């Protein structure tokens, strides 16, 4: 729940370079690790200078509750992430979190669908679901542009499930094509309800939601938006709310009402 979020200093205790522009950092932050649920995120202050000014949002990739550590997985896309990627073990990050509403774990059969760096929160979720419902394996579909972007991460997901399918844009690993194509092929299960949990680029999410509607599956999506504060003060992170005909147009906020939404809460017609 967003209201229990805290501001803490977290020491970086591990840095991994997954690819030339994808990094994973392990951070000691027990006050956050002990409260976080999958789908929640952190606002990370990159430095103490005035530029880059704003914190950057990162979903929580994994936690080790017994060790009080959490991980973030990120891609370098601009000056904030570039500076963050240069940090070393022993340096401290100023963190706000855990923030937002996470995934609503259902006892149903589940499929996790991730695209690109959107796979980040799904590892935490996969682990969580495996612990909550031992014996009920998740089906996990991960998509990336190339083998290089996804291969190292598949090992972590493979520890949790045998039912792991990959799709790459260039065909260098797994299915040659896009993740929604793999989801389309999954047979609806008559006996049990099914929930799809998804995170990735907006066009991918839109296709996933369309497929879920057709197949009668529940879908929860993790959305991104440009945000300044992440703590429901600035109101920057607006997404259009799905509205009935007589309702006035209004917005939901990714940091407070999300980042995880039930697919039907959101207006996908943009």
């Amino acid at each position: 729940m967003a209201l229990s979020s805290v501001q803490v200093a977290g020491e970086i205790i591990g840095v991994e370079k997954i690819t030339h522009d994808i990094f994973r950092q392990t951070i000691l932050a027990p006050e956050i690790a002990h409260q976080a649920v999958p789908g929640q995120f952190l606002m990370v202050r990159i430095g103490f200078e005035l530029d880059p000014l704003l914190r950057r949002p990162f979903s929580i990739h994994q936690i080790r509750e017994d060790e009080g550590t959490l991980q973030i997985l990120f891609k370098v896309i601009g000056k904030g992430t570039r500076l963050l990627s240069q940090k070393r073990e022993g340096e401290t990050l100023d963190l706000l979190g855990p923030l937002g509403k996470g995934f609503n774990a259902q006892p149903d059969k589940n499929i996790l669908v991730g695209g690109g760096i959107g796979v980040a929160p799904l590892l935490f979720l996969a682990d969580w679901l495996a612990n909550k419902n031992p014996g009920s394996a998740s089906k996990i579909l991960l998509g990336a542009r190339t083998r290089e972007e996804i291969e190292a991460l598949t090992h972590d997901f493979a520890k949790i499930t045998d039912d792991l399918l990959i799709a790459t844009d260039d065909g260098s690993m797994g299915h040659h094509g896009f993740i929604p194509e793999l989801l389309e092929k999954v047979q609806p299960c008559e006996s049990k309800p099914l929930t799809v949990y998804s995170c990735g680029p907006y066009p991918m999410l839109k296709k996933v939601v369309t497929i879920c509607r057709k197949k009668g599956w529940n879908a929860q999506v993790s959305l991104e938006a440009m945000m300044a504060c992440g703590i429901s003060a600035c109101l920057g992170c607006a997404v259009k709310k799905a509205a009935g005909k007589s309702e006035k147009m209004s917005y939901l906020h990714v940091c407070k009402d999300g980042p995880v939404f039930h697919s039907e809460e959101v207006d996908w017609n943009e």
Partner: protein
Amino acid sequence: MNKPSLKVAVGALELKNPVMTASGTFGYGQEYETYLDLNTLGAIVVKGISIKPRPGNPPPRVVETPSGMLNAIGLENVGVERFIDEKLPYLRKIESKVVVNILGDSIDDYRQLAETLDDVTGVHALEINISCPNVKKGGVAFGTVPKMANEVTKAVRNACRLPIILKLSPNVTNIVEIAKAVEEGGADAISLINTLLGMAIDIHARRPKLANIVGGLSGPAIKPVAIRMVWQVAQNVKIPVIGIGGITNAEDAIEFMLAGATAIEVGTANFINPHATIDIVNGISAFLEKYNYKSVDEIIGALDVS
């Protein structure tokens, strides 16, 4: 040795310290309760309130710029009725003063809001946002024409007994002219500056970064403009001035106070450092002690330009 006094009087509004929050950066207060003790603030200025709820602009609404950010939130707010029913009860439990920022499309809107909030328990002052467009006059912002700024002030002055603070837009040729116009209209204090109008472009998409195309610039980048305007206005009006614009630490706040500000508002800094306000209160206190001042009053307008 007693700690220096931090008390200031912004007209009839007495504050335990000069640190206030800037409207639009602190929600309705409760958003920050897990990060700092809200009782330590001089005043909380809440998100701007209109008569009816406003949904705000389509996204993207915010974008970072060098040492700053642009926002085109679009004045999203719950409207005055829901503010009173849902947000004010929490604020009544806090010791800090509560200032309600109000905005409208017409002079009548401002008058109506002032009337509605006048006798409401827990509201200690109004801050009047005149950077809004006057839709009855072709969308020219109230705060850019001295005569309109004066009229809005008079309308609000006649509609309520609360202390009224007029918040000025910097997007004008002559800020002193606007300041004098609101002083003449009956303002108890002036706060400045609101955001500077700016723009940013995504060169790869060849599109503006904001859906609204233009937005308001805030943050450290605007501080020099804000200090200059505070100084110019403070030289030319008798009523208290509240300084706003890129304040991130106590040093910044003291610059504004030396330039003539009786109090200051902290805005964008809250996003980066949720306890920026309390850090600033402590920093001002430390500065006063260092120079053996007995009271923060001693630095207000103490700039030496000889």
